[in-house]
C-alpha cells in the first residue's frame, strides 16, 4: 500500500514540474521590537528543487533558516506544488532595516525575491548593539558510542537576544533541542546549563512541536529561562546538556553512502516500522558555549535608594481611604510593572516621613510570562498620618535602565487626601532608662507623666477568674441551702401542729353540737340532761386548753374562766345535780326535765362559753 502511495506521489511530483517556478518573500509582520522575532517566509511555487541559504546576512538582524513546508495541490487536473521556507528574523537593536532581495536557484534558474522593509522598535530586552546569537551543537553518547548516530538524531542551541548586558540585568534565554522526527526519543530530565557568573531561573515546561529544517523533519523542544549576570567581564554561557534515550531503527545504523534523496524518502516511520526493529541508545545532546560581555553598573548618578533593580519599569499608585482621621491607616499600594529583575526590587522609599508613621510593607509578584522577566510587583504598606495632611508623602523608586544606560527615579502619585481631627500627641520626651535620675522617687506627678507607684501592702491572692469558677463559691451555697431546708422543716412542723389543734377544735364543735341537741330536747330525762350539760362544759373547757375533756374536774372548770358568782353557782349546781342523778337510780330517768330548769342550765352554759380567759 505504501508503495502505491509513494508511486502516486512521485507521479504527482513529476506532473508538478510542468509549471514555471516563481518565488515570493513575505514577512509575518513589517514591524516588531527588539527581542521579538518575526518570520520571513519564502514561497517557491512550481518546484521543490530549490537551494535556499541557511542564513541571510542583514546588519542588525539575525536571519536563520528554521524550516520548510511542502504543499501539493491539484485543481482541474492541474497539479501545482510549492515549498515554503521559513526564517526566523531576530532584531538585534531598534531601527529600520531592509531585508535585501534573495537570489534562489530553482531548477537551474536564478530567481530573486523582492526586498522587504522591517521596522524595529526598542524595548528593555533589546538594548545594545550586540546581536542575538545562537550556538548549536550536535549530540553525543555519554559513553562515546555512536557519535555519528547521535549527531544525526539531535542537536541543540542556546538562543540569546543579546550578547552584552549589565550586571543584574535579567536576560531571557531559550534552549532549543531538535530531535530527528523518525527517532523515538524519551527525555527523562531537563537540560542543565553551565552558567558560571550568572544566576539562572528554573526552566519552563518544554514547548514541543514538529518542524521541518533543512529538508528534514524534527521534533522541536524548547525550554525557556532567564539568566542574570552577577559580575562584570566576559562570561561564558553553556553548554546546555540534555540526556535522552533514543529508540534507533536498526536499518538506520547501516550506512548508506549512496542513499542520496532516497534517504529522506526512507526516513519515514512507516518504512522503519516495516524494515527493521529498534535499539535503545542513551545519548546526550549538548549545545555550544556562547560568550557575553557583562558591563558593571555605572557608579556615577546612582540614587541613594537604588536597590539593584535593572530593567524598564513604571509605577502606579493606589491609596484608600482618602478621607480619614489622624491616626487612622491609609493602605498605600504601589504597583511596579515592566520587565527586569523583579527579585532585586525592594519597597519604594518614603522620602518625606515627618508627620507620617509607616509599617513594613508586604509585596506580591505577578509574572506576565513563564520566566518571570515581565510582570508586576505590588507593595502594600500602611501609612498613618499623625497630623493634618493634604497629600500622600513623596515615595520614590529607582532603577537602572539598560537601554538608556542611566538611572531612573520614579515618584509615586501624590494623591490628595483629607485628614481630619487633631494630631495624635507626640510621644512625651521621657528620660531614657539609662539616664533616669538615680534614687529620686518619681513621686512628683506632672501633667506629662504617669502616677507614681502604689507602695502600700498589696492585695495578694487576687484572681482573674470570677468567683463562680471557684469551688468555694459553690460550697458556700451550702449555708443558705441548709437554712432553706431548716426553714422548710420548721414551716412543715408548724403547719402540722396547727392542723392538730384545728382537728381538736372541730371535734369539740361536733361534740358540743350533738350535746346541745340533747340539751334542747323537751323529752330528755334529768339524768341524761345533766350528764350532757356536764360533758358540754368539759368539752368547752378542753377546746381552749388542749386537754382531754374527761380529765378536767368540775371544780377546775369553774376556775378556768372568770365567771360571776351567779354563773359559778349555777355551774356548781349543774355538777352537783349530775352527781345526784347519777347515783339516784332508775326512778329519776322516767321523768322529764322541767323547762325552767333546762333554760337555767342552758343560760349558764352559754355564759361559760362566752366567758374569755
Amino acid at each position: 500500500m505504501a508503495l502505491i502511495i509513494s508511486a502516486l506521489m512521485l507521479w504527482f511530483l513529476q506532473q508538478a514540474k510542468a509549471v514555471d517556478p516563481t518565488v515570493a518573500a513575505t514577512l509575518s509582520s513589517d514591524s516588531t521590537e527588539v527581542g521579538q522575532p518575526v518570520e520571513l517566509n519564502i514561497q517557491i511555487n512550481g518546484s521543490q528543487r530549490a537551494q535556499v541559504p541557511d542564513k541571510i546576512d542583514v546588519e542588525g538582524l539575525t536571519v536563520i533558516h528554521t524550516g520548510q513546508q511542502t504543499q501539493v495541490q491539484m485543481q482541474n487536473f492541474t497539479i501545482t506544488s510549492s515549498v515554503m521556507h521559513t526564517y526566523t528574523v531576530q532584531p538585534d537593536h531598534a531601527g529600520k532595516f531592509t531585508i535585501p532581495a534573495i537570489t534562489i536557484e530553482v531548477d537551474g534558474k536564478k530567481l530573486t525575491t523582492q526586498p522587504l522593509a522591517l521596522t524595529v522598535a526598542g524595548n528593555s530586552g533589546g538594548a545594545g548593539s550586540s546581536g542575538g546569537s545562537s550556538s548549536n551543537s550536535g549530540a553525543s553518547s555519554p559513553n562515546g558510542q555512536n557519535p555519528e548516530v547521535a549527531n544525526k538524531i539531535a542537536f541543540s542551541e542556546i538562543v540569546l537576544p543579546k550578547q552584552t548586558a549589565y550586571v543584574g540585568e535579567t536576560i531571557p534565554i531559550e534552549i532549543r533541542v531538535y530531535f530527528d522526527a523518525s527517532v523515538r526519543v524519551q527525555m527523562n530530565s531537563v537540560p542543565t546549563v553551565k552558567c558560571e557568573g550568572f544566576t539562572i531561573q528554573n526552566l519552563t515546561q518544554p514547548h514541543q512541536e514538529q518542524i521541518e529544517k533543512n529538508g528534514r523533519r524534527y521534533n522541536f523542544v524548547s525550554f525557556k529561562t532567564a539568566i542574570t549576570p552577577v559580575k562584570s567581564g566576559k562570561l561564558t554561557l553553556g553548554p546546555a546538556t540534555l540526556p535522552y534515550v533514543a529508540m534507533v531503527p536498526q536499518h538506520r545504523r547501516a550506512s548508506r553512502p549512496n542513499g542520496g534523496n532516497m534517504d529522506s524518502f526512507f526516513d519515514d516511520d512507516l518504512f522503519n516500522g516495516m524494515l527493521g526493529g529498534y535499539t535503545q541508545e542513551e545519548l546526550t545532546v549538548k549545545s555550544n558555549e556562547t560568550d557575553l560581555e557583562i558591563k558593571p553598573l555605572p557608579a556615577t548618578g546612582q540614587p541613594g535608594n537604588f536597590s539593584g533593580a535593572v530593567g524598564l519599569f513604571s509605577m502606579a499608585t493606589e491609596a484608600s481611604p482618602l478621607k480619614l482621621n489622624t491616626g487612622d491607616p491609609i493602605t498605600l499600594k504601589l504597583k511596579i510593572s515592566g520587565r527586569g529583575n523583579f527579585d532585586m526590587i525592594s519597597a519604594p522609599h518614603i522620602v518625606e516621613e515627618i508627620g507620617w508613621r509607616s509599617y513594613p510593607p508586604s509585596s506580591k509578584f505577578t509574572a506576565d510570562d513563564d520566566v518571570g522577566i515581565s510582570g508586576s510587583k505590588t507593595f502594600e504598606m500602611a501609612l498613618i498620618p499623625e497630623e493634618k495632611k493634604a497629600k500622600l508623602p513623596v515615595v520614590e523608586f529607582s532603577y537602572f535602565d539598560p537601554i538608556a544606560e542611566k538611572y531612573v527615579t520614579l515618584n509615586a502619585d501624590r494623591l490628595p487626601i483629607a485628614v481630619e481631627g487633631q494630631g495624635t500627641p507626640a510621644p512625651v520626651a521621657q528620660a531614657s532608662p539609662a539616664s533616669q535620675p538615680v534614687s529620686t522617687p518619681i513621686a512628683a506627678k506632672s501633667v506629662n507623666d504617669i502616677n507614681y507607684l502604689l507602695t502600700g501592702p498589696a492585695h495578694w491572692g487576687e484572681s482573674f477568674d470570677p468567683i463562680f469558677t471557684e469551688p468555694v463559691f459553690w460550697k458556700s451555697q451550702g449555708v443558705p441551702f441548709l437554712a432553706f431546708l431548716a426553714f422548710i422543716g420548721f414551716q412543715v412542723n408548724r403547719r402540722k401542729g396547727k392542723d392538730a389543734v384545728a382537728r381538736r377544735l372541730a371535734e369539740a364543735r361536733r361534740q358540743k353540737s350533738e350535746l346541745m341537741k340533747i340539751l334542747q330536747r323537751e323529752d330528755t330525762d334529768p339524768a341524761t340532761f345533766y350528764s350532757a350539760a356536764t360533758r358540754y362544759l368539759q368539752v368547752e373547757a378542753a377546746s381552749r386548753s388542749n386537754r382531754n375533756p374527761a380529765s378536767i374536774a368540775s371544780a377546775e372548770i369553774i376556775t378556768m374562766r372568770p365567771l360571776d358568782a351567779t354563773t359559778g353557782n349555777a355551774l356548781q349546781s349543774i355538777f352537783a345535780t349530775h352527781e345526784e342523778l347519777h347515783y339516784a337510780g332508775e326512778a329519776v330517768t322516767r321523768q322529764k326535765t322541767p323547762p325552767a330548769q333546762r333554760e337555767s342550765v342552758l343560760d349558764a352554759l352559754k355564759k361559760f362559753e362566752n366567758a374569755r380567759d
Partner: protein
Amino acid sequence: MHAIKLKRNQAGLFKKTIMLIAVASLTLTAWAGDFQKDFERANQQYDLGKFNEAEAFYNSIIDAGHFSPELFYNLGNTEFRLNKSGAAILNYERALALSPNNPEARANLIFVRAQTGAKIAPEDWRDRIVASLDVNIYCWAAACSAWIIIFALAIILLKSRPNNLAPWLVAICSVAFLSYAIFAVYHFEQNSSLGIVISKSAEARFAPVDNSTLVAALPEGSRVWVLERRGPWIYCMLPDNSRAWISSDAVERVRLHAS
C-alpha cells in the same frame, strides 16, 4: 463530777481551734509576706531607676502565680519607663481587671493610650449600664438574689395567708436584681478574651498570610478580642468590630491564669 469533766473537754477543744486558726493565719501572713518583700524590693529598684531589675522582680512574682492590682499597676509603670508602652497598657488593664475602681491605674492607662494612639472600641450601652464593680461582687449579689427568691417563693407556698403581698414584692425585686447581676457577669465575661497589642507594629490582615491584604494597622496598646488561634496567627475582633488576623507575637491576653 461528770459535768466538770465535760467542761474541761470543751475548753480544750476551744483552745485547739484557736491555735489552729492562729497557725493558719501566721502561715498565710508568711506566704503573703514573701511576695510583699519581693514587691517592695521591686519598688526600691524602680525608685533607683533600675527599671530592668524592677521588671524582673515583678515578673518573678507573676510567674509564681501570685497576682495583685498593685503589682500589675507598678509593673505597668516600669514598662512605661522602659519605653514599652504596649506592655504598660497591658498591665494597667490587668490592674483594672482585678480592681476596676483603681483610680491611678485608670489615669495612667488614659495617659499612655493618648501617647500611643491606641485604638479602643467606643463605650456602648452595656458599658454604661453596668457599674464598674468587681465581677465577684456581682457574682455574690446574684447568688444572694437567687436565695432570696427561693425563700420568698417558699414563704408564698407554705404560708396560709395568700393575700400577703410582701413576699411577692421581695421576689419580684430580687428577680430584677438577679437579672442585672447575671447580665453584668456576662458582660465582664465577654472581656475574658480581651487582648492588648504590645508590639509597635501590629498589622491586621484578611488572612493568616504575611502578604495578605491589610485590614488595619493597630498602634500598641490597642484592644482586640481574641477569637481563634492558628499557629503563629490569631483571629481577632478589632475595635471597629471588624475581624482580621494578627501575628500572635503582637498581642497578649489581659487575663492570666495562676499556674
